């Protein structure tokens, strides 16, 4: 029997939604003409209503995992990256310091709705905690140069490395025609949250015990490295063994370099720091410096 044109239209659209759920990266078209044949449950129009109130929350529920369709020149486009609540941010931070095997940060904690609030403010806090803690034994030097260097290093790491990882993974995924990889935003998000553990670490680095500092940095690297490895392993494990291991190894090595680099720059031992000539009332500070 011939299906009526209306039935055909509706089935096509269901297929489209299924395809979208499987591959949210695909570009979407809005078909406002077919809205009369679809039932109340499904949206006939995939366009997002960008009025910044509860309409946005409803739409983002329906379009879980799909890209926002408003242009990058609108303010609402950027608001979509800050669509988180306090409890969500706290949950994500918790997920970044407690990596459990099998718990993929992106799938489990982010649930495919990444945000930029966490990565940005974690990076800012880390910059200042590094600069302040590193400056502590010698704060007559002023901390502005420390802040500048820290800001450049941390923000470059938090954006360029995810860009490289995402680019590489997307290229491999396209070649091997695997299931979808992570979006750039999700990669940035997991890297940003993985840096959280370094904030308390950098504060604890004030304590002048070399063995403690190395222990702390080891713990921090293991925790944040695990978060990254657990997140990216499922994506590369379908690839050739060599590529998979090389990718994961690169991620880990870059992370280790960041940690050690920060420690060495901001927490130089007193023997390496040039001791400037100071007024007599600063002698007390220098004497305590030398015991580090």
């Amino acid at each position: 029997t011939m299906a009526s044109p209306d039935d055909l239209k509706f089935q096509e659209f269901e297929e489209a939604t299924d395809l979208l759920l499987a591959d949210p990266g695909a570009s979407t078209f809005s078909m406002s003409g077919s809205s009369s044949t679809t039932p109340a449950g499904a949206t006939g129009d995939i366009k997002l209503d960008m009025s910044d109130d509860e309409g946005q929350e409803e739409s983002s529920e329906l379009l879980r995992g799909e890209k926002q369709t408003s242009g990058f020149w609108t303010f609402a486009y950027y608001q979509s990256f800050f669509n988180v609540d306090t409890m969500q941010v706290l949950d994500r931070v918790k997920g970044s310091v407690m990596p459990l095997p099998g718990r993929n940060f992106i799938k489990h904690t982010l649930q495919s709705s990444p945000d930029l609030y966490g990565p940005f403010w974690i990076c800012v806090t880390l910059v200042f905690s590094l600069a302040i803690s590193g400056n502590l034994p010698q704060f007559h030097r002023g901390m502005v140069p420390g802040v500048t260097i820290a800001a450049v290093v941390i923000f470059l790491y938090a954006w360029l490395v995810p860009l490289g990882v995402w680019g590489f993974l997307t290229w491999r995924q396209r070649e091997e025609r695997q299931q979808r990889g992570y979006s750039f935003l999700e990669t940035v998000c997991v890297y940003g949250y993985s840096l959280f553990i370094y904030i308390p670490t950098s504060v604890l680095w004030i304590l002048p015990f070399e063995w403690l500092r190395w222990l702390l940095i080891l713990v921090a690297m293991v925790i944040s490295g695990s978060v990254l490895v657990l997140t990216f392993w499922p994506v590369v494990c379908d690839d050739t063994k060599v590529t998979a291991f090389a990718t994961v190894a690169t991620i880990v090595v870059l992370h280790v370099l960041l940690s050690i680099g920060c420690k060495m720059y901001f927490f130089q031992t007193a023997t390496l720091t040039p001791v400037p000539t100071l007024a007599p009332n600063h002698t007390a500070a220098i004497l305590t410096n030398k015991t580090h």
Partner: protein
Amino acid sequence: MAEVEETGKLMFADLSDVSISGDIPVQGEINVPVGTPSQDKEYSTLDEPVKDTILRDLKAVGKKFVHVMYPKKSSALLRDWDLWGPLLLCVTLALMLQGGSVDRKDDGGPQFAEVFVIIWFGSVIITLNSKLLGGTISFFQSLCVLGYCIMPLTVAMVVCRLVLLGGSWGFSFIVRLIVVTASFSWSTFASTAFLADSQPPNRKALVVYPVFLFYFVIGWMILTFSPSA
């Protein structure tokens, strides 16, 4: 169909008698509404003496300073925002912070431009953050609140400079630590009282934290200030 055509023709037939020449003057009155009563209060300020203008602005700034000292839930800071107060405070703070510990080998304390940039750049970032999270406060209102709430820290800076005259370490450090901690808490609390209302309730902490960080960093700069030898 034919009927419609007929009636259409009849309708238009009436109008065909009307001749419109090009030089019929258009008559009528154009009334501009004089304005609501509230607008009447804003008389032209161009005619008043300069002293009055300055005094009025100073009074507005002074009133806001009082509001920061005793942060209540008043909307004066928000409604009639201005940026004179923040500018004054920022310049004062930057002037007092610069030139600390002049040492040929080191960079010394933060320079005027650095403090200025940190304060204004920080305020802009926090305002953007609050708006991106869905806040209803306007851009300049938020800048105004953040700028005015630097006042306790400026007062702390003045106190610190006085205390530093008696030496940098020991008792003086403890006093300065207490003063700076108290004033930075006061700043955070005051600005939160004004800003938090404009946020949806499940995101208040997300907006307050950057403010806390901002005043903490400024407080740290004040605390670690040491004067040149």
